[in-house]
């Protein structure tokens, strides 16, 4: 763990620890009440989930077409973070929905696309873990296809749902953002940076270990 990672992690941890007081100080939202405060974790996690997915897809494309070997490590690191932030998004979302809309899960375009994107990255990780030799290129193809798929999933789920009568339970998300929200976004972003660089470092070390074993075999 580098010093920068430690500072980032400590700062993010401290910010997340004081976050409840900052969020508590924010004005009480009149129609949704207390449960609206879940939003302060939900939205940053969702943003970083998408960011991680985009990084994984882009790095995979660079690995496949640009033949950059170290890009594979970044893709794997970003994919793992996509799963981590994705599970936070997918769990905090229903907790909010339960109170706000009265049900745990809605087959709404945004929710369903998030779930499928998350599943794509879980599949990616399963492949990288159990796929054996050659799974790095295969995984890169999977991440690339997964990212290209997002608009299709969104459009198809949107039409599938909106052509049915029982939708429109999802409120429009707030446009204006307050200080507490930016506080949480910053904390999550710091955490994301630290974790991404640590995870990519782990992958570089794995490559190094492999090289060392190879050198030992040759010697």
């Amino acid at each position, binding site marked *: 763990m580098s010093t920068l990672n430690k500072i980032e992690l400590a700062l993010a941890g401290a910010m997340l620890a004081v976050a409840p007081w900052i969020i508590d100080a924010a*004005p009480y939202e009149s129609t949704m009440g207390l449960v609206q405060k879940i939003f302060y974790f939900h939205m940053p*996690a969702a943003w970083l989930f998408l960011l991680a997915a985009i990084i994984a897809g882009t790095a995979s494309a660079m690995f496949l077409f640009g033949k950059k070997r170290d890009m594979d490590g970044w893709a794997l690191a970003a994919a793992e973070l996509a799963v981590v932030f994705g599970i936070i998004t997918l769990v905090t979302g229903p907790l909010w929905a339960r109170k706000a*809309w009265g049900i745990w899960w809605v087959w709404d375009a945004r929710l369903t696309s998030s779930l499928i994107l998350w599943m794509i990255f879980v599949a990616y990780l399963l492949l990288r873990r159990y796929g054996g030799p050659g799974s790095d290129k295969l995984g890169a193809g999977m991440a690339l296809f997964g990212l290209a798929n997002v608009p299709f999933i969104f459009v198809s789920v949107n039409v599938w749902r909106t052509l049915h009568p029982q939708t429109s339970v999802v409120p429009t998300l707030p446009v204006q953002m307050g200080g507490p929200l930016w506080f949480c976004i910053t904390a999550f972003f710091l955490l994301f940076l630290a974790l991404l660089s640590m995870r990519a470092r782990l992958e570089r070390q794995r490559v190094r*270990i492999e090289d060392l074993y190879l050198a*030992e075999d040759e010697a």
Partner: protein
Amino acid sequence: MRFCRALFVTALLIGAPAALAAQPQPSADEFVPMEEAPPEEQIPAINLVAAAYGFVWIVVVGYVWSLGRRLQKAESEIAALEQRRR
């Protein structure tokens, strides 16, 4: 890349408290009204908020712990391999 990140962290350490103090409070009329759930379906909101916050912590701490352990293992393996080479 690394320099940019260090710069970002430093700027945050210096600038954030000031920015936070100056930040105007958001107005409360940002949401469209919710649909009323039947009363027997209601769960106290505080439980849900606490569950969400707790879940974030569990996932983050768990992930950092596993990542730290994996890094440590890799580092000790590299050290052992390099010692054997010498």
